[in-house]
């Protein structure tokens, strides 16, 4: 059984705009690939093409060894898809939603019920299973949505921003489930705006920006390029920013991003912090605030493209604009 995903030169245009531009990627069987990028990077469009929901303008993609255009019907038999929003029927109960999917996948009535109950237990929804979905919390909906895409025991699973809108606890719970699927041998392609998420789950990461692949590798490889953390510096006076930038560049080895009186730069070593403070003090530059934070998606983009990612995570949490409407 071929559980790989192979994408070659995939292109998708929307009314003159190129949403996905010559994307190529490989996911070996049983691997988790993280497709990382800001809103509008083409992540959802790529997933929709791989899940046979959208036809490519050019290029080829094989999912489980099957062509997503010529063998779309057979691709649908082996994939599971969880979108950005919980795509379940609000009026039905959780159990009814799962039974419906099972029936549509060709299971007999009794088998469909058994599979639904099994998944409800598995996803801690046994109690809630008999309530309409409209009474569910966001985390419960997302669990049900994931359960719904697993009804047919797909060999290949697409998760489009699975943790958007989830609180930290629900997010960790989701991560644990994805890891279990991975352990069971499922090939997973997940999109995310969070480096942390890709880091936690993915065997390898492909970074998308404006429809193009701008970097790929393991989380460790990318971090080595990006720096694991970001030095954050706020000066007392904005007119000293240029001088401070020169000092920081010498010390960290990379050009900092300057915005008014704030500077940020990727750093590999936390021990650099005292040195930065010392040098700036010696140069007579007044520091108002100094700190280290974990590398964010913005930092990845900063170091890979020299520009900040177009999406700030908090604004995207609503999730209903931009890419998922595209």
């Amino acid at each position, binding site marked *: 059984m071929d559980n790989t995903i192979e994408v070659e030169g995939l292109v998708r245009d929307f009314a003159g705009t190129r949403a996905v531009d010559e994307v190529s990627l490989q996911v070996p069987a049983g691997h988790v690939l993280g497709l990382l990028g800001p809103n509008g990077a083409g992540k959802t469009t790529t997933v929709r093409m791989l899940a046979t929901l*959208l036809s490519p303008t050019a290029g080829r993609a094989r999912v489980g060894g099957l062509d997503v255009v010529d063998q779309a019907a057979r691709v649908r*038999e082996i994939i599971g898809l969880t979108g950005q929003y919980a795509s379940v029927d*609000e009026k*039905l109960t959780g159990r009814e939603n799962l039974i*419906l999917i099972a*029936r*549509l*996948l060709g*299971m007999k009535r009794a088998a469909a019920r058994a599979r639904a109950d099994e998944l409800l237990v598995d996803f801690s929804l046994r109690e809630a299973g008999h309530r*309409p979905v409209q009474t569910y919390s966001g985390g419960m909906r997302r669990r049900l949505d994931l359960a719904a895409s697993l009804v047919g025991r797909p060999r290949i699973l697409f998760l489009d921003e699975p943790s958007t809108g989830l609180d930290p606890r629900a997010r960790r719970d989701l991560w644990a489930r994805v890891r279990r699927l991975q352990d069971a041998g499922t090939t997973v392609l997940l999109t995310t705006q969070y480096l942390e998420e890709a880091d936690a789950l993915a065997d390898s990461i492909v970074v998308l920006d404006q429809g193009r692949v701008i970097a790929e590798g393991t989380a460790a490889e990318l971090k080595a390029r990006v720096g694991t953390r970001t030095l954050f510096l706020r000066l007392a006076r904005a007119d000293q920013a240029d001088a401070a930038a020169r000092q920081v560049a010498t010390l960290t080895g990379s050009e900092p991003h300057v915005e008014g009186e704030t500077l940020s730069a990727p750093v590999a070593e936390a021990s650099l912090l005292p040195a930065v403070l010392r040098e700036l003090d010696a140069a007579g530059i007044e520091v108002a605030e100094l700190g280290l934070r974990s590398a964010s998606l913005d930092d990845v983009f900063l170091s890979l493209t020299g520009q900040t990612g177009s999406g700030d995570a908090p604004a995207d949490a609503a999730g209903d604009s931009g890419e998922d409407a595209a």
Partner: protein
Amino acid sequence: MNALDQTLALAWRSLVQVRRNPWELGDYSIQPILFLVLFLFVFGGAIAGSPDDYLAFVLPGVIVMNMLFVTVYVGHGLNTDLTRGVFDRFRALPIPRWAPLAGRILADVVKQVLCIGLLLIVGYLLGFRLATSFGHLLVMVLLVLTFAVAFSWVMVLVGVLARDPEHVQLFGFTALFPVTFVSSAFVPVETMPEWLQGFVQANPVSLLTEAARGLMNADGAVAAPALASLAWAAGIAAVFAPLSVWVLNRRLARG
């Protein structure tokens, strides 16, 4: 599992909500009962001399009006599926592309039958007695259902074009009210100004109502209005079914 079973499963999905929450059906049932009772007792005297004399005239009209209103829910449900991503989930499953739509329309037919049955029961309680046979009544129901299926395609189009489910309802009812009232569903055509009569007589709502009246009350022509209604149904389906599918595919191709 074949395509028919899958369509039935999708129809079940639209109906199971009604079973659990009969108020859902209230949307389609309370309203027409209210209309029937209001028309009967408020306008009945003015239009037909007495509510009792008006009942046989207005009952077929209310059945036809309600049939049109129920079709709005095909568009409403489809739009909900499209905007909530449920439609995408179905499309990523190994089922025929037309199955989700067919399931909706099939479920709609069942709801239509329930509504017509309900109106007939309420009509009976108010004193309506069938002047023809059960066979005639069955033909009336089939005629109304045939028109409903054809007209559903108009609502499929609205469902695809509307931004959200609320707009489907808003647009659907706003468009249906004048079409229903500028007909002979509630008032005899002769009482209207002449310039309006031509429109009213050509209105499929009038034609369908008149055929239904003939089939229930044995007081008028059946064949002519029934055939004209069927011609309308065929015309509507011929235009709106391909158009709706085309627009739906365009919407899906947008991403």
